[in-house]
């Protein structure tokens, strides 16, 4: 299994370097099985210009929100950032969070954004494979990776395109 984990932030790279890192991740994407975005590296998982990766990209995209989960949700209140964060949620096959408290917040956000569909709920009625609590280790992620993704890629694509277009405005 080929895995690429991107860990941010990269303040020393500057905005141009950040863009290169994202582009580099995108170039590698077709050859990967799993891509994990951690910290600011999450931006590379769902860079606004890369929704096409949902078709050609790695088989699984994992969003690791752990370094700054509260800020990650608070950021969504700034309209300019909101679409970008929504895009990340929409792109992710699995979302990792630190504790049950953060998991509740993320599940609420996913429902409100229309990113949980009846078909995906039927496959995973506890959403335990979609939003993974890492409080007691990574057993949940291993379990999730051993099953097909919960979310339907076609539906996710429509959400990604819709929210991706918004993020460009």
């Amino acid at each position, binding site marked *: 299994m080929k895995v690429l984990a991107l860990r941010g932030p990269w303040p020393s790279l500057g905005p141009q370097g950040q863009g290169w890192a994202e582009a580099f991740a995108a170039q590698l994407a077709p050859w990967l099985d799993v891509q994990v975005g951690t910290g600011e590296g999450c931006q590379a998982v769902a860079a606004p210009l890369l929704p096409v990766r949902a078709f050609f990209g790695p088989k699984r995209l994992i969003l690791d929100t752990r370094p700054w989960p509260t800020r990650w*949700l*608070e950021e*969504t*209140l700034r*309209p300019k950032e*909101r679409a970008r964060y*929504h895009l990340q*949620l929409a792109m992710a096959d699995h979302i990792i969070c630190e504790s049950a*408290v953060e998991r*509740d*917040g*993320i*599940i*609420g*956000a*996913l*429902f*409100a*954004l*229309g990113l*949980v*569909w*009846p078909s995906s*709920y*039927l496959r995973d*009625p*506890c*959403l335990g494979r979609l939003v993974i609590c890492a409080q007691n280790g990574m057993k949940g992620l291993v379990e999730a990776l051993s099953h097909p993704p919960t979310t339907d890629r076609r539906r996710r694509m429509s959400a990604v395109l819709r929210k991706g277009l918004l993020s460009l405005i």
Partner: protein
Amino acid sequence: MSIRVLIISPGDVGQRMSAPGIRAFHMAQALAQALPHARITLAAPKVDTRLQGFPEKVKPYPYGERPLLWAAQDADVVVANFLPVRLASLCAHKLVVVDLFAQYFAEWMEVTVHQEQGLTRDLVWLERRAYIAFQLAVADLVLCANERQRLSYLGALRALGLRRPVAVAPHGLRPQAPQKRRQVVKGVYPGIRPTDKLLIWNGGTTDWYDPDTFLLALHHLAQERDDIKALFLGATYPNVPALGWGRRFRSAIDTAKELGLYGSTVFFEFGWVPYDDVPDYLLEADAGVCAYSDHLETYYSFRTRFMDLLWAGVPIICTKGDTLAEMIEQEGLGLAVPPGDPIAMAHAIRSLLDDQEGQERIRKRIQQVRQRLTWEQAMTPLIDFCRTARPPARPRHGRLWGEVFPWALNYLATRALREVTQGEAPWLARAPQRVASRLARILRKGL
């Protein structure tokens, strides 16, 4: 100036009421007691003021007969389980409290996946999601029933770009002490002897419950003894008949028949037991039982049916997964077993019913817990909000057009789309007829 509060219940307030009606009724009671100068109106499709404990100073408003808008215009604070979309514009001038005492995203998802199929299922879900988002957008304060619900609603609000306070206001216990007026089950029901042990399934049986585990446990116990009887209390939900006589309730009857328990070990109360008669049933019960499956609805739920059991001092046997099951386990108010495990449930029933001392211990602990589960305490966030509430000095048009109307339109559009795909006339086409019939009704009544 005294504050004017309007409480809107989507269901009837009277002898036949389910959780929303019960909640609105006790909310009015708690507010009337805590805010003696407030003018409180309780609006429901039907309001029965003969209900035990109906506060004299609360004005009933049956909106099945009169337009709700009239009552709403005369209020400073509107408290609603679900604010009707036609009242959306109120939030520009009034303070709105939305009482979401379940995690409705999870609850309605559970209903949607079981009741609908194909494209209709997706459209129904989109419609329901937009309706909940509209409720969040219109609120000045969101009430919910437990901390898990609060966190998930906060996440939803942030994702929608809304800043709204969310407070925990759970269900409380009835204020008066439980009193038995007459014998209703033991020795009365054909097949239930006065010496039998009675288990009560208190409330309806909707999609998210798991009566099969309970029935299999009873089947297991019926092989060794015949003194354990179970009564399902309530089938038809008031105002929402489809929710009661749904797939799950029918399957429970079928399973009871298949297992040979129907009419000998398991009994069903068809209809809905009047609110003031419920104590008669509960005070005969040796234990209350409820089982549900392992899913998100369970995780976020606050089982309001447990409150009446605790009020009557009845030990509870339930499945794990929700916050009240955690409380029951931690505080020793009964027993919680893993979901979907009939053998574990049979063992729990046997051990509880055969241990008289254990039952007494549980009843004593319930008495202690009851002190902190009153409606006055539960409704503290709402009481505080109403006490300090100041209606907006200027109309909040920005909020109305920027946050509320987009979700109202989203809901109405998805609803129309769903109705068209289901071959129904969309709401827009039905609206003139509905308005005309409502006007005719009002004119007939001379209001």
